[in-house]
């Protein structure tokens, strides 16, 4: 790749000693955040609302039912014992059973992972390249009308709530044009084409906001890169500004994008929760909302920890990619903490 000669010098190999230490540090941070997060989730669900057995059983339950439930869930044990019992069960894969529906929580969550994963990963795969392209285009035209139009469109895209956008897409592409299904999910194993058709609208609904957000970061990162010496060097060697930006600039503008992606992950996951419910996709977000509305504290608790772990793992990936793309970060992280 010719790009290497112009950008900040990359290391000879991305997997060196500093990379290893950086990875360890990121993993440790993930562990600490997961433990803190599990504590917050546990305290929010178990202490804020009063008697957990009453919440789960509902107002119409008899005192005997509530007592039996309290006994079976171990809610009369000390709080710290309950916390470690839950965490221990979580690690060994024993999540307990749902009170209202009677399913094993662990296997139910496992069954719900695929649609959520397909939706979120699909959104990232679609929106990152588009955001890079749009942001670069806006940076190259940033004092022209074309650039202004792109900026204004991005601003509108950020202001569109995902649930509204999802419904407008259903109205347009399912009800008016009849091109795509309005709701439901088809598993890849059952029908690959149907799978992508069922995901097309949910992914679009989620991607528009992500693209609008990311493209603005790409734009400002790219405007900064266009002033760098290596771009002038490339132009001196006969490249057009656009050629220099595409061949050399994108790689360097992508570095800040990765760090922003980490922040955007939380937004992506909450957006997925909303979009899954509009399109009735049988994913984790759908299970979360039905459990919240059914006030199934035990289900919500484990489900939230799974979602938090998902956010943290995505952040870890972003961290690692960041470290590979920009060797300076690794050194800073190791000495700084």
């Amino acid at each position, binding site marked *: 790749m010719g790009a290497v000669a112009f950008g900040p010098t990359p290391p000879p190999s991305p997997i060196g000693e500093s990379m290893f230490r950086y990875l360890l540090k990121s993993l440790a941070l993930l562990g600490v*955040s997961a433990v*803190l*997060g599990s504590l*917050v*989730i546990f305290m*929010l*669900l*178990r202490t*804020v*609302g009063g008697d957990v057995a009453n*919440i789960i059983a509902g107002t119409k339950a008899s005192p005997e039912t509530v007592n039996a439930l309290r006994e079976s869930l171990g809610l009369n044990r000390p709080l710290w014992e309950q916390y470690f019992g839950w965490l221990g069960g979580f690690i060994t894969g024993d999540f307990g059973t749902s009170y209202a529906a009677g399913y094993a929580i662990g296997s139910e969550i496992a069954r719900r992972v695929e649609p959520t994963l397909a939706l979120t990963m699909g959104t990232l795969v679609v929106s990152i390249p588009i955001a890079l392209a749009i942001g670069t285009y806006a940076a190259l035209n*940033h004092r022209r009308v074309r650039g202004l139009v792109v900026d204004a469109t991005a*601003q*509108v895209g*950020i*202001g*569109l*709530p*995902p*649930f*509204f956008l999802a*419904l*407008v897409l*259903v*109205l347009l592409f399912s*009800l008016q044009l009849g091109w795509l299904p309005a709701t439901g999910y088809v598993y890849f194993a059952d029908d690959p084409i149907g799978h992508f058709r069922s995901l097309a609208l949910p992914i679009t609904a989620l991607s528009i906001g992500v693209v609008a957000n990311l493209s603005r970061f790409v734009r*400002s990162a790219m*405007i*900064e890169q266009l002033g760098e010496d290596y771009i002038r060097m490339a132009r001196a060697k006969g490249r057009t500004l656009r050629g220099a930006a595409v061949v050399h600039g994108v790689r360097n503008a992508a570095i800040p994008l990765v760090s922003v992606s980490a*922040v955007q992950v*939380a*937004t992506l*996951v*909450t957006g997925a*929760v*909303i979009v899954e*419910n*509009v399109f009735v996709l049988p994913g984790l977000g759908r299970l*979360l*909302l039905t*459990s*919240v*509305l059914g*006030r*199934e*504290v035990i289900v*919500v608790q484990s489900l*939230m920890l799974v*979602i*938090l772990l998902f*956010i*943290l793992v995505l*952040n870890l990936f972003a961290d690692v990619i960041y470290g590979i793309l920009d060797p300076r970060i690794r050194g800073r992280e190791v000495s700084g903490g």
Partner: protein
Amino acid sequence: MDNEPQKLARAERGRGQIPLQVILGGIFAGFVVGAVLLSFVWTPWGPEFFDVSNRLTGPSASHWFGTDHLGRDLLTMTMLGGRASLSITLISTAIGAIFGVLLALGAAGAPPPIAASLARLADIGIALPSILIALALATALGPGSGSMIIAISVWFVPVTARVLIGPARQVLALDFIEASRSQGRGQFFILLRHVMPNIAPLIIVQISIMFGAGVLIESSLSFLGVGVQPPIPSWGRTLSEAQPLLSVAPHYLLLPGAVIVVAILGFNLLGDGLRVWLDPQQSRRGTD
């Protein structure tokens, strides 16, 4: 970033022309806020008026936004629904701004170990999105505006703090702080009387951004059914009621939805424009 004093001085002096974003954002946000405020003295129809013979009709001269499945006037319902959305957003933003500024001042001016842990706390708080906190609270406490206000403001505090910690530290490093200290002023006085006024423009920008985010989060939660409960009207619930009727009454979705978008867009534009206007140095990157 390196010539912070100049930047602050410039922010104090010429602010130049009002950016287009501020004007547009002000018009959009002002239009929606005005319509919601108007609902306290006047609405086109009464909230209890059921025009049974005209259910789910499209926009007309007598019902500008059309009617819903019960024959209620949708413009009236949208104006009334804004009360819940905007008041919940206002309260959450106020709590977020007050505690966020205090956290930022603490993290900038406290003794080093405390300052470092406060800054780290703000980092961790951001990772827990408010929609998830709201869902946890809705499970424990039951759905309602109380859970929502707690969840939104709990998230706004670290978000605000993170934006302000850096600028607050930069003000603390300026010469006039040293001068004030030499006159015997304490740290508390310096933070409140010197640092806070100097980061005030950033606080105003942040408030505007929080308003947009607050409307977005509140309407999402009400849409999911874990927000404001019936019979109180809200924007999010109007849209969730429109969902099953999408094929017969698209106006039911589109017109109230457009109002939500105009509100969010207005506050976002206002925030963006104010940043450019109040903070010329930073914005140069984007406009030069």
